[in-house]
């Protein structure tokens, strides 16, 4: 199971969604799709048309910048981060 960390801007949108949870999935996109099953609409908050990560959403797998197709290993840590932006 991968250790998934989600941005704080996401959790208020989905009641019960924790900042940190475990997901079994082979890729970043599969992990997001897995979360979508439990929290419908979550995928669209992270993934734009293409599909592609939204431009201000970054993903890291074990500390390395990742894309949607980046593999996620059994004990990987997946950080999904809302970029520092706005004002």
């Amino acid at each position: 199971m991968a250790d998934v960390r989600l941005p704080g801007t996401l959790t208020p949108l989905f009641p019960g969604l924790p900042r940190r949870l475990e997901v079994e999935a082979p890729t970043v996109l599969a992990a997001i799709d897995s979360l979508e099953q439990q929290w419908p609409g979550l995928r669209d908050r992270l993934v734009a048309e293409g599909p592609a990560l939204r431009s201000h959403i970054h993903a890291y797998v074990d500390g390395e910048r990742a894309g949607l197709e980046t593999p996620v290993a059994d004990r990987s840590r997946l950080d999904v981060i809302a970029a520092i932006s706005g004002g």
Partner: protein
Amino acid sequence: MSKTMLTVATRKGTFILESDDRRDWKLRGPYCEGWPVYHAIYDATTGEIYAAAASEWHGSAVWRSGDLGETWEMSSEGLSYGDEDGRKISKVSTLARAGDRLLVGVEAPGIFESRDNGKNWSLLSTLSGQHGSEAWDDPANQPPGHLGISGFVTDPSDSDSFFAIVQGVGAFETDDGGSSWTPRNKGLRRDWPADYEDVGFCVHKLVRSSDPKRMYQQNHVGMHRSDDAGRSWTEITEGLPGDFGFAAAVHPHDTETFYVIPVDGGHGRTMHEGKATVWRTRDAGSSWQPMRAGLPQDNAHLGVLRQGMTIDSHDTPGLYFGTSTGQVFASADEGDNWSEIASYLPAISSVDVAILD
């Protein structure tokens, strides 16, 4: 006693202003998690509030509240051109109720509809095939073109009939629920070259009076009036301090009375001479009078966007406008006298008014 409620969309969420007497107002909010909200409306059909919002992080969605703003949900289910199309939705810009449809206009230009009050969406039309659509349908044009559907005008007597504004292109009308469209820009002024006779106009705001044939519009270059339901337009700018502006409102009981807020057409886009002024015509645009009582007249460099002014339907209507610097001004006497009813909100995109029993 009825309550008057303003739904105020801002750069940082939705706010609600309420009053029993249109003098003392209470403010609630922010709602919608502080997302940038571009248009928020109260829908009398369902009693729900809808807010079109687009987060820099989390994309576009329509928020909805069934309890006058106390709790909110949001959805973007179906609100997409899909992975293969090439067009992307960078913003949801404007909302309207048309019968059993809730409409949302998006950028790149398209209209989505929801038949379950905002839970699920499907593409209704991109006005494909209209003159100019080859440009607005080109993904390479967005951004920086930022062309979108910026406004609707619906017909209370016919839910299949409504206007949609394509930014920088013009107004189009459908009478079959969005299956076919007709440009409605005849007689409008434009000060630039264009590829087509019937499109290439910059319509900022369209409003329909209580007589469906009498319409008004604020254009990039002038105020205009139509006496034939938008089929032709006559310019009525003379007497105003400029021809540029965004906000406009029509009196609910008097088809001759119309309000606009001219702003500088350059980069500033604030009210002329730093004097906050709403201009009113009582004779369908033959003459204009400045409404300034109670509005700041010194160094008031205020901007008001296209959905930023509205008017209620009381016997003596009240006018309201919100500024790009976060003030809301209100008049309970058709614009004669004004007061500032909110002062420190984020930049305001839209103000909508409803009378609740």
